[in-house]
């Protein structure tokens, strides 16, 4: 029951990124069917709604619902934008889609354009993904030559141009409105919402923006039907999902499994811990999601509701497995530095607060912590979370709160003994 959606071509093909191979596994059949038979756009949107697909970029917003916010017949240019910025630490699934299944993403984007009446699309690719960018460009060329992109697709009268756009290497540009600003050639800074992209998107026009995995799922959903997709998963979490799994495990990588799969099964899939280490904790949905102790994780299933009930988030599906030799203070030092460095700087709580958080954590890590620092961290988190322009502020606060919730003793140990509770003693932090 694995590899049915985004990875459906992987095990059958040698070079699944080539157009001909993709077609040999049914690629572009759905698009062809839709265009030839003039399937109603609203039918497409309805199927997407029925599938229960929730955005795979992190927020988990229902994709079909998002599409339905755009009125296909509204006059003027509309856009489809794909978010392949993949900046969330621990996440590396969209990279595999770009590498191994770029045509499925293209097919999904054309269908999305058809559904909302957009004739232009952009795929915004993370700045460091140079090879993936080249591969995607090659796929675009093939699709254009085959008539799947361009004017009057397959004689249907529907036009769709698709371009890729390489980012500049800023995490914040993965935030959808910062991404739009960046495509427009401006500084990558999130816009305040509302208005949402569906009303005021790229160049001020109605736009849907979805994650690479969300859009790549579209052709399969339309082929097999919304119900089929929904049934793959569990209540409130339709479909299967790519999980990027990393840590000191035997077999790290990206795995497509149905939502609702128990974590313990996934843990087995990756071959358990390396070098006899023990599972200590898991970050279930990318760095921005709060950490969960290992034993608790072992009882959880990997779906939106279960993880949320446990106080964290499924997020982008990036599972970071932490073993017993890792110092949580050092880990948080790393993570806090990341948010401090990646804050766009426009809004006060994030610009000032992320730096403050990191400096305090870094101080603790370096044996200069004070007793009041633990309360201070909690209080600063409280002044950032929910008060910023975009969710980066929340993303910076959540891991701190998670670590303090479950691993406060390691922080206390650092303050008291000026060294790590686990591992080899004080380590040089960043900065």
């Amino acid at each position, binding site marked *: 029951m694995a590899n049915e959606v985004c990875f459906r071509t992987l095990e059958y093909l040698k070079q699944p990124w080539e157009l001909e191979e993709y077609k040999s596994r049914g690629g572009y059949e759905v698009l062809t069917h839709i265009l030839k038979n003039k399937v109603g756009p609203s039918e497409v949107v309805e199927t997407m709604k029925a599938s229960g697909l929730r955005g795979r970029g992190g927020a988990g917003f229902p994709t079909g619902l998002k599409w339905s916010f755009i009125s296909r017949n509204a006059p003027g240019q509309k856009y489809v934008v794909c978010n392949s910025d993949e900046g969330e630490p621990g996440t590396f699934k969209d990279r595999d889609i770009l590498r191994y299944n770029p045509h499925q993403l293209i097919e999904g984007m054309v269908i999305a354009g058809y559904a909302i009446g957009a004739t232009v699309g952009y795929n915004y690719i993370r700045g460091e993904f140079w090879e993936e960018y080249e591969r995607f460009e090659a796929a675009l060329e093939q699709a254009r030559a085959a008539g799947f992109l361009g004017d009057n697709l397959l004689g249907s009268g529907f036009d769709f141009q698709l371009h890729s756009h390489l980012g500049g290497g800023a995490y914040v540009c993965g935030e959808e409105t910062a991404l739009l600003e960046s495509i427009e050639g401006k500084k990558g800074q999130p816009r305040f919402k509302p208005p949402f992209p569906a009303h005021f998107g790229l160049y001020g026009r109605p736009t849907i923006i979805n994650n690479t995995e969300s859009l790549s799922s579209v052709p399969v959903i339309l082929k097999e039907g919304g119900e089929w997709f929904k049934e793959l998963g569990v209540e409130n979490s339709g479909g299967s999902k790519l999980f990027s799994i990393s840590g000191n495990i035997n077999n790290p990588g990206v795995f497509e499994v149905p939502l609702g799969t128990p974590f313990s099964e996934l843990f087995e899939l990756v071959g358990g811990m390396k070098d006899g280490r023990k599972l200590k904790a898991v970050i279930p949905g990318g760095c921005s999601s709060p950490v969960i102790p290992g034993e608790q994780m072992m009882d959880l299933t990997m779906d939106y509701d279960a993880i949320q009930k446990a106080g964290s988030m499924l997020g982008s599906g990036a599972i970071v497995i932490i073993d017993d030799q890792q110092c949580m203070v050092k880990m948080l030092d790393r993570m806090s530095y990341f948010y401090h460095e*990646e804050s766009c700087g*426009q*809004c*006060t*709580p994030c*610009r*000032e607060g992320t730096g*403050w958080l990191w400096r*305090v954590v870094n101080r603790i890590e370096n044996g200069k912590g004070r007793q009041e620092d633990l309360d201070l961290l909690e209080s600063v988190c409280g*002044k950032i979370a929910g008060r910023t322009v975009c969710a980066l502020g929340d993303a910076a606060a959540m891991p701190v709160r998670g670590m303090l919730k479950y691993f406060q003793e390691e922080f206390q140990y650092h303050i008291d003994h000026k060294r790590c509770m686990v591992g080899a003693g004080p380590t040089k932090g960043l900065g």
Partner: protein
Amino acid sequence: MTDELVTIEVDGRELKAKPGTMLIDVTDAAGINIPRFCYHKKLSVSANCRMCLVEVEKVPKPLPACCTPVNEGMKVSTRSPMALGAQKGTMEFLLINHPLDCPICDQGGECELQDVAVGYGSDVSRYSEAKRVVPQRDIGPLIATDFTRCIHCTRCVRFGAEIAGVRELGATGRGEHMTIGTFVEKSVDSEMSGNVIDLCPVGSLTAKPSRYKARAWELTQHDSVAPHDSVGSNIHVHTRNNRVVRVHPKENESINEIWLSDRDRFSYEGLNSEDRLTQPMVRKNGEWQEVEWQEALEFAVKGLQSAAGSDGDQLATLVSANSTLEELYLAQKLTRGMDSGNIDHRLRQSDFRLDGNDSPVPGLGITIQGIESLDAALLVGSNVRKEQPIIAHRLRKAAKSGAKVSFINPLWIDLHFEADQFVSTPAVMVDNLASIAKAASAKLTGNLAKLVKAAEVSETAKSVAEQLKSANNGVIMLGNQAAAHPDYSLLVVLASAIAEATNTSLSYIPALSNSVGAALAGALPHRGPAASLVEKCGANAQMMQSKPRKAYLLMGAEPGFDFWDPSLINSALDQAECVVALTAYHSESLASCADVMLPIAGFAETSGTLVNAEGTWQSFNGLVKPQGDARPAWKVLRVLGNLLDIDGFDQNSSDDVLEELKSHAAETAIDNSVSTKTAGELNSSTEGLYRIGDVPMYASDALVRRASSLQRTNSAEPAAVRLSANQAKSSDVEEEETLVVVQDGNRAQLPLIIDPRVPDGAVWISSALPGTEKLGGQFGVVTLEKA
């Protein structure tokens, strides 16, 4: 959107508002204070400071009032524990990296951060890390920067993009490294740049000229009116110990909104120039001597009487249109009282052939605010952006909302909005306008009918005519360089006929702060107070110079710098028997030709009235004592009137003078009608190299010429000869070479600059700058020689 209002509740108070209005605008209108930094009513919403967070019922997080639209039934608390907690949280973040150097900060006492911190800050800091420091940046002589104090509200950045129309300041860097600056090391040069000083809520951007001169609480604030261009921007003059320390804009939505041009903001520095004339001076046996007022006045009266006492026509009065209404009125009264009709304020005009048929009170003809709702405008001979920055700002708003704006000019100008520019030598400007007249089927007679008939209708002419015709609200505006054009009369009649044919209106952009007032006061040879035609026409400014008189009375004008043709006025004054100058400055230019210099009060030192471009009368008080022994000019004129035994000089205050003028002119409105359809022959020619002599922004009058900080800006460029690369080649001269300019036998040595803004066949040599004070007319044929 419907007109129906929604009802919301804020802190228990019921408020009505249009749906979709931002909450902060609703609370502001109701007088409910929500703290804010990034929000500014004249700028777009950026919602980045997060100071305005409030609690909205049923919303789990605090919401920013500046970007939360109101809707029916919304319940808001601005001071609930959640709201206050959020506001205090933001305040703490804003302060952790702020230097808190209030005691040495010029903003201290009028700082938004300081004010809000009093209400929302805490008295101890929980931040014990090192604070951020941003290296110093020099962005020019007007604005002092200290970006360590910056709170990243981006008001200055948005000002550049949205109001000034030039992105001079920007935010570079991410996160904590985000800093405001110019993208490459350069100065900020917009003609409106100083407004960022007012917008900046902290001491990150402060006024350099007044830095460290006073603490805010030591200053006294007075209302006044800016004395340069014809906008009459409303200002607050801040004084301390009888000195003007700085000038700020005063809000007046119908005139300058909340903005001020740099010239209006920083020119006050010229008040305290070392050049100020502080004691009356007379020339005895060729030597200048300081004397008491009594002696100086008697000397002046004796001189005037002996030169022009028996023949009024020997008296010529030339006055600056930056003088007050009261001064101009008394000057014409005195002149006419001496049986002379020779008075004129049009010192930068050379073509007076239309006098008598001219517009009685030339002005905008629309309101300044009304410019925003124009849908088409053709500007002839105007560098409006530098000459009347606020009018340009209003035009920019019109252009941004779709108005078609075109220019017929002798130079390419730098604009901050989209417009078509038709640039040619001065003579061809007339043809271009004639071409539009033809395309618009304008009705003309005589000479101009012939000219129009001969004109070729270009595509551009057609499109401009079309734009004007299809406009609901269009104007043809004549600017400073039209007024100085040797064929001004032709331009006016053509423009007026085009306006008639296209159903648009003729508009003048007056050059100086009281150009309109000068017409109302009767400072014209052919029109008395209220612009009524006089029976016996006097000599106009040109005739007063080309046919020298024995006696001259000058007010507020410097011969080398305020006249169309400095060489002509100089030679006229040299030949005179008696030259009496009312002046605030002891200038070389006056000292070499005057016989008496009477020190008069400058800007902010006298009461008076200015009438702006739209015809609004604006009176102000004297705010500081005139320097030294200087006296308000209206008083000097009054005493001169008495001593000359002229009737009607017994006013006791400038108000009395104003009342007297009002009895004639209170009801006189702007009147742009032109009562002819033809004009004389073309004066300008395409033969030879033709000079274009504009008046640079910071050379427009005696006060601004002495404003030292403005004079150090990049906009205050020294005199030069400017040619297009083509023209330089055919004139066989090279960049940076020093050239001798020869005009009507006068010579000046100036460096050559290659400048693509100059059309071939023309040479751009600005007037009113040192180095050009001996040259001829602003327009005319010149030759270039190698030095």
